Each structure stands twice: as C-alpha cells, then as structure tokens.
C-alpha cells in the first residue's frame, strides 16, 4: 500500500464523522485513533465498522484517525470508503454494501 496518499472525508456536523487516512507502516496493521461524542456507548462499534470496511478493501496496514459526532454505521462506512478512495484505493464495489 505504498501508493496511498493522505486523504480525508466527512464533516464535524452532528451525526457525521471525519475520517483521515494516513500512511501506515508495513506490518503494523490497521491503526485507528478515535474521538467520539458517543465513545462510551458506541466506541467499540465505530472501531469495528471502520476496521471491517478497511479489511473489506483488502488493506492490511493503514493509519486512520476518526473524529465522530454520532454518525450512524452507514455514515461511518461511507466516509471511510470515500477517504480510502481519495487516498488512491480502488474501491471494490462488491464490498461496499456488505
């Protein structure tokens, strides 16, 4: 994944999330740094959705920063995919709505 470039998707509006993609080092896996207004209630779930979305695109090493304002799962998935696409990942359509 050395061809990835830093990218971002989303806003800080209520019910949205900002996903920033940075370069991950090979072998370090999927590193997710996260802030959320609903961290206590949904922190684990948001992390899982981001991780699953990234894995679904066949990515093994990546750094993602997520700043969440109460986004629903569908929004988290959409913003993650858009950020990945902007980073240069060729999105596999079949994986989008899984």
């Amino acid at each position, binding site marked *: 994944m050395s061809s990835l470039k830093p990218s971002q998707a989303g806003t800080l509006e209520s019910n949205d999330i900002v996903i920033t993609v940075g370069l991950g080092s090979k072998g370090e896996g999927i590193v997710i740094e996260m802030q959320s207004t*609903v961290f206590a209630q*949904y922190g684990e779930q948001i992390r899982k959705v981001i991780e699953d979305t990234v894995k679904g695109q066949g990515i093994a090493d990546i750094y993602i920063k997520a700043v969440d304002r109460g986004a629903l799962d569908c929004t988290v998935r959409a913003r993650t995919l858009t950020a990945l696409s902007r980073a240069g990942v060729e999105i596999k359509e079949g994986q989008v709505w899984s």
Partner: protein
Amino acid sequence: MITNAIGRAVPEQIEGYGRVKPFAGAFNTPPDMKRAAPAVKMRRPGESKLHGSLEEVFRAIPVKDGMTVSFHHHFRNGDYVLNMVLDTAARLGIKDLTVAMTALFPVHKPLLDHIKNGVVTDITTNYMSGPVADAVTRGILKRPVIMRTHGGRHRAIECGELKIDVAFIAAPACDDYGNLNGVMGPAACGSLSYAMADAEYADHVVVLTDFLCDYPLSPVSISQTRVDYVVKVDAIGDPKGIVSGTIRSIKDPVQLRIAQMAANVIKASGLIREGLSFQTGAGGATLATAQYLSKMIEEAGVTASFSVGGTTSFIVNMLNRGLLRKILDVQDFEREPIESIGSNPNHLEVSVDEYANPFNSGCIVNRLDTVILGATEIDMDFNVNVTTGSSGLIMGGSGGHSDSAAGAKLTIIVANLLRGRLSTVVDKTLTVTTPGESVDVLVTERGIAVNPLRKDLLEKMKAAGLPVKEIGELKAEAEKLAGVPGKIKTGDRAVAAIEYRDGTIIDVVRQVLD
C-alpha cells in the same frame, strides 16, 4: 443500600446530610414537622443597614467557618454575586462553607478554585451545568451534592432541613433600608422568586445591589423587614447572561413536528377549553409547543387562565393578545417579560413556595392542566433523567421539572427519539430525576407513547388518530437505526444525591472515572 419505590439503590445514610428517606411514591411521604423559624430581630430607629463593602458585612455578621451561604440564579450565566462573595470569603480566610445556590452555570467556574483551597466543601443546588458540574461528577467534593427540585428546596428550608446562615440576594434595585425588586435598574432580571425563601428563613440576609434607590422603593418584591445588610457594588450581573442560549426561534423541522404533535395530544385529551392552564419551557420543542398551543386556543375561541414557570416573550404576547388571563412568574428569560412583569398587573411575581412547594396548603402546580417538559433520557417505566448527560456527567437537574410533572393533570415529555446517535428512550435511565408515575405522554418525532397507568388517555389519543406506540417499540426503532448502546461505566461513589420534592431520595449520581 436500600431499594426505593422505583427500584433504585440509595444509601441509608449520607455524610453531612443524615439518614436517607427512600422515595416511596410522589405523594406517599407526608410531613410530620413544624415550620422552622430564624431568630426574631429588632432594629432601633436611626440604625443604618448600608455598608461600604462586603468585607465589612462579613465581619459584622460575622461569617464563620462551616456556615451555609445561599444564592439565587436569576442572572443565570450572567451572575457576578456568587463569585464575588466567595472571593471575599477566601480573602478573609474563611473555610468549609456550604454553598446553597439555586442553580450553577459555567460562569461559576471560579467556585472550583474555592473548593481546591478549602473555602467551599459542600454544595446543594437544583441544577448545574458547566465546569463545576463536571468536576463534581468526577469527584472533587468529599460529600455528595444534594440536588433538589425548586419546590423541594423551599420545602427543605421551611422544614429546617436546609438551614441557611447567610443569604446573599442580588437585587437589581434596592433602597438603603432593604426594600428591593427585580424590575428596575441596569441589571433588571424580573421575578425574584427563588430568593424569597432565603430572605424569609436565613439567619442573616445580605442584599447586594448596583442600583441604590431613594427610600421607600416601590414596587417591593422582598421587604425591609427581612433584610439586615445592604451593600452597593459596581455590578451584580450581566443581563445578557439571562438569555444564556435557551431561547431560539425553532426552525428545526423535527422539533416542529414534535411540538405540533404535543399540541395535538393536549387537544385530544380535551384540555383546550375555557380556563386552560399550562406551563411550557424555554428550550427547543417546548417553546415551539407553546406556539401551536396558542394557535389552538385562538381557534377554539377560549382563554387560558394562567401560565406558570419561567416566562418568555411568547407567553407575554399571549397575555397581551387576550389569549391568557394571568402569568404567574418565577423567572424571566428575555427583555419583554422583564418589562411586562414590572408594568402589567396581570403578570404576577410568585414565590417558589406558591409555585411548587409540596408541603404547604396547596401550590400552583397542583392547578396545572398541562405541562410540557424535556428529557435527556426516558425509560420503560417513563422515569425521566434531566440530570446526567450521555457521558454520565451532571449537566442539569430538576429545577421545576419534578414539581410540575407531579402537579399537572397531563404531563407531556417532548424529545427527539435520536439525538446524534443516542436514543432518548432507554431500558433504564442512568439517573432518575422525575418518577414515571408523574409522566403521562412521551412525544417523539417517530410517534407518541402513553404511560400504561393512563388508560383513559390512551383511548383518547387513539380516538384522535395520533400515532400511538408502545414505549418499547420506540426504543426498538431507535436501536434499529443507531445500534444497541454500550453501558456507561461509572464508579461506585455517590457524587450527588437526587432529592425528590418531598425530601425522599429518588436516586444518586455515581462518580465518572476517566
């Protein structure tokens, strides 16, 4: 620990408070005491009450370690008096004070320094938000904060449970002999309801004013007969802080839909009739409900008898248009009601005793047809939380919530089903402020739920074709959209005890660990 009537575990004893009476139902713990009374006083002719500085008053009383000092919150987030008084106490080396403020706002952040330096060790209040509330929930105080309702605070003072040594009253206008009102001067705030119990029952009553008037002042809200000291200061508060963000005209279509449905609930219950009485709040959907309600009153050609509680310009407008006969006012949120209460004889200042005290021969909320209130959370038993927020931190309190809910024939909770990602309808609220037995209908953008205790209402709502659902169905809808929320982890230590209006403990707030 003991389990109270709504299944909440409360301690048997609270340090600095005493033995806990567990909540037993809204009207199941009748009083068995006499009214408390402060010492009888005397003033000789020629004695002056006017003092040059707060320090001078502190020495004259004298204010000592361990005393309870009280304040009222009519300036809301624009209050200068609490900080001014505590700074004085700190300068004079006084320690271990209990602060009995009716409500604490972000402006009271300096209180934290006075907790750290030992000037203040205990707090009792009816509402708190901002840095003090955060620090309290994180455990800054050794003993729990006692959180009361507005009516319950008056009751606690009158029953001798909340003993005030020195009351500090912020007076927008005062003469040199202590007659004061809230309707004149550069910092006019309108009603001074919350300060009245303090003036009546404190051992020492100190008035701070930035508008000293010729004797005798009129009109009089609190009389010279109860005031011991008058101090002129530069400013008692910032009137802009009174309107601290609660009043906005509502454009959010979701809130408008909720408000419209709430008004339809009132109509379906048969209460749009001559002499209707109501209470609405100043925030979001409750304010918008007043607008729909007003339209219905006008269309039905009837007149409402009274509105009670905090007053907005919208309510004043109803009075002026003849849709409403009287406003019974405890607090003013805007310029227009402040002007109105000072000039319109049908706009009356009432004490909290009259408004909401459960232990007198009848308070105004007992005469309410309907009240529209908000909720942070509401559970399957219709218990409502307006005390703690989504992270477990205190960010409110009852104020008059439990009082009006208990008194009104029809108590309506208006709330978005989803706020951000969080459902308002939950299995069990983190904290209970108002018991479900005094809540009748929940109105959300995705339908309404009627308390099963009110079968009569359920029939009426269905007959009117309103979108009635089980409260559990609303919860399921929210979870389908947002997922099932994880539980907030809290510590074991109680950082606040929620006292119901009758002096029983309905719940405790537990420490938030970071």
